[in-house]
């Protein structure tokens, strides 16, 4: 693979795909396959789901409102890369240190990874580390997401990454559980291969979070001649949703019809998801085993190709 040591970004060309990691934006800014772009912006750190009726009823959103801001804004603290075993700090990668890399053999490498460290816009602050790895013989880019909890923060509605795809999708298919599933509503999910035609619209009269898929092995998104695949790593699973709206658009809408025209696709990969509850919609909390504790660490990994 070819490594491009830019002044503000790290480029990687591998297997017909070109990746650009933006130091300034803090993440993967471009994923280009066959001349088509797959990313609209660097991925968001996902900390919010549009308040469900039960979240509103039991006061969860009020208690955890801090995470709504953290979902919109995050702070890149540092980054570093490892290329063919050579560690490069952020300082090594940017100008003028990168002048030294003009003739480096690392420009043609067998394996690379780049790690971004973030600090959440909360008080106190928690840490997040995202590592992207690309290697010869490996399909696509592997993403390792790690949330590092601290005491003193409210519970999380969700914890992961949100990719904004600059296009509409025609369908997606996944290997995992049927239908929409959440941690406390998975019993009815049958295991198998399933197809969703179109990007799913909000099935609830009041706009709110929807469309989560727990314990998935593989996801394929189709959009004209574009195709994006997310795969679990090492026999594990991941949780995802593919929605035509951001959590903030859903949060602001009263009805699905109030939502903006579907232009871009929001792919969320969640390390942890809060249950939806159901005992009632005005008082009872979600079962304790389905809470997402913000003082714990939450991890997920997957590959995108």
């Amino acid at each position, binding site marked *: 693979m070819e490594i491009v040591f830019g002044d503000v970004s790290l480029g990687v060309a591998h297997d017909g795909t070109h990746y650009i990691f933006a130091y300034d934006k803090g993440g993967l800014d471009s994923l280009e396959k066959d001349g088509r772009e797959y990313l609209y912006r660097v991925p968001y750190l996902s900390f919010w789901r549009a308040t469900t*009726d*039960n979240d509103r009823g039991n006061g969860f959103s009020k208690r955890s409102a801090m995470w709504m801001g953290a979902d919109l804004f995050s702070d890149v603290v540092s980054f570093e890369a490892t290329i063919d075993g050579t560690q490069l700090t952020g300082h090594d990668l940017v100008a003028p240190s990168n002048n030294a890399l003009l003739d480096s053999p690392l420009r043609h490498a067998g394996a690379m990874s780049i790690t971004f460290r973030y600090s959440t816009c909360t008080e106190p602050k928690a840490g997040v580390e995202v590592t992207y790895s690309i290697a010869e013989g490996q399909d696509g880019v592997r993403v390792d997401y790690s949330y590092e909890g601290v005491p003193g923060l409210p519970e999380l509605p969700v914890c992961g990454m949100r990719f904004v795809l600059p296009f509409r999708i025609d369908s997606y298919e996944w290997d995992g559980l049927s239908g929409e599933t959440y941690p406390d509503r998975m019993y009815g999910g049958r295991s198998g291969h399933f197809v969703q035609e179109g990007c799913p619209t909000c099935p609830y009269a009041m706009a*709110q979070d929807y469309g989560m898929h727990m314990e998935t092995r593989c996801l394929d998104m189709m959009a004209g001649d574009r195709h994006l695949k997310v795969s679990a790593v090492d026999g594990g699973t991941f949780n995802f949703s593919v929605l035509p709206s951001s959590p903030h658009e859903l949060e602001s809408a009263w009805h699905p019809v109030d939502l903006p025209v579907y232009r871009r696709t929001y792919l969320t990969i969640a390390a942890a998801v809060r249950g939806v509850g159901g005992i009632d919609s005005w008082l009872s909390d979600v079962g304790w085993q389905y809470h997402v504790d913000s003082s714990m660490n939450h991890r997920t990994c997957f590959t995108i190709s």
Partner: protein
Amino acid sequence: MNPDLGWLSDPAVFRVNRRDAHSDHVHYRDEKEAERGRSSFFHSLDGQWDFIWSATPEEREKDFHRPGFRSRRIGKIQVPGHVEIQGHGQVQYINTMYPWEGREMLRPPMVPHDNPVSQYIRRFDLPARMAGQRIILRFDGVECAMYVYLNGQFVGYAEDSFTPSEFEITDLVRERGNRLCVEVYKRSKASWIEDQDFFRFSGIFRPVYLYSIPSCHVDDMWAKTDLMRDESGTFSLRLRLSYGDPSFRGRLEYRLGDLVSGSLDLDASVTSWQSEVFAIPFVGQYHYRAPKLYDFSITVYDDAGDVVEYIPYRIGFNHIEVENGMVMYNYHRIVICGVNRHEWSPSGGRSITLDDMMRDIDLIRQARCNSVRTCHYPDRVEWYSMCDEAGIYVMAETNMESHGSWQKNSAVEPSWNVPGDRPEWKDLVLDRCVSNFELLKNHTSIIFWSLGNESWCGECIQAMNDYYKSVDDGRLVHYEGVFHRPEMKSSVSDVESQMYAPPQRVRRYLEKDGSKPFLLCEYMHSMGNSLGGLKEYDDLFDEYLGYVGGYIWDFIDQALYRTDEATGERYLAYGGDFEEKRSDYEFSCNGIVDAERNVKPGFQEVEAVYGNRLW
């Protein structure tokens, strides 16, 4: 008796000239006509009626029922249908608060000044086949109080929005040129006990028709059955008869499949009759997995041997009782995997079609439910026969909820609860039980009579409980509201009924008290993205013999079609979208299916949990 607007706020007056409630059997000319399914004794008055709407009683046309009345105000309206959906008055969704909250300060039985009046006019000729016979005028549902006039004469007055009201009009009806006038009030004192969590509508919202009574007619029947432990059964028949011809002489034959048959001689002196109790060596049980029904029929012959009327019905055998702290159905512990169902259509509100109902049956079966609670009023009468056929056990609720009279802003505060202990309300609420029982008593699928919902508890509810117990020893009585009056628990409700209790509270009851079987009349509030944790309730069946099960809240979202002014797009509007105040907004949408009957994502959870438990 002269009609009086004072009746609207007088708990002592809730029916004037309204006929006694009776079983919902349909009479046909003969067996052939019954097979075709359309009785020529009946004549529908549904369709477009003349209509005047007034925002208050003062603005109504006081002479609209008089012959020769003319007015430029007369428009058209579709019957059946709510008037609000057809552009007359405010659409409002509100839960426990009374609809006049923040606008008028009232206490029961006062009636708000904001009380829209719908005046309906329908001209009709009597079909030739009905001429010269006794004629009954029947309204299947009118919300919430009506004064009826025919050809200028006062016919009668009725309330109880969800129960059929019948008036005999034989002496007033003409062969041609009849003018039926119905004055419907949106509010009456009954509004205090029709405070269900739903959209507040008014008008003639269920079918209206005439039927004729031949020379001899079975007014009421009760084909009562029981299933014994050894799979034998018992059957008895109770009849009430009336005669269009006082000189009638003839014979009545009844037949229950190949199991029982008999006959009796009739003349006009025979107005009630009770058969012996027949013992049948073997009967197939009625069970949700095998809803075996037997064809029952009554044929009335005149003395020339010609058929006067033919009545078909479908009857099954079951047995329900409480034994050792368990609810036993056909001598096995029952497992209720149920759902509460409001009648709903996104275009018609609670004015629904038979097709809507058939789809509901299919969806309820698809969700693998075995029981439905008719929250919180009697449904369109056809619903109960559909449940009989489908094997869906029914909790048949009385039309009553007075939630706002004892719970205010979530706090329990019963300072002016109705009906409570108020003697002046007792006959009114008892009449609702009588109507519910008499209309529906032949339906095998009904296993519980329910005293209504969330009305607190007091002497009136005690009397309702005692009424059902006194007339029907073959079904259980259900009431949740006694939860708030523990000292009355020993005499009200056969089951401990609670709503929205977390699994731990169910456990606590069954372990610490357990004096009655435990039922969740509402649980798993399926509002929006919900239904998490359903499986944890299912586990209670294995842990406790006294756990009866529960009814999910609820079946279908209450939302109405509305057009987005910005885009012209049609959408499903919930409370508050009609700019009505006050409202409980999106709280109207708690279905496992959306208002258009698309299954919501949580549906597969119900299917799986209920399916594994029951099927």
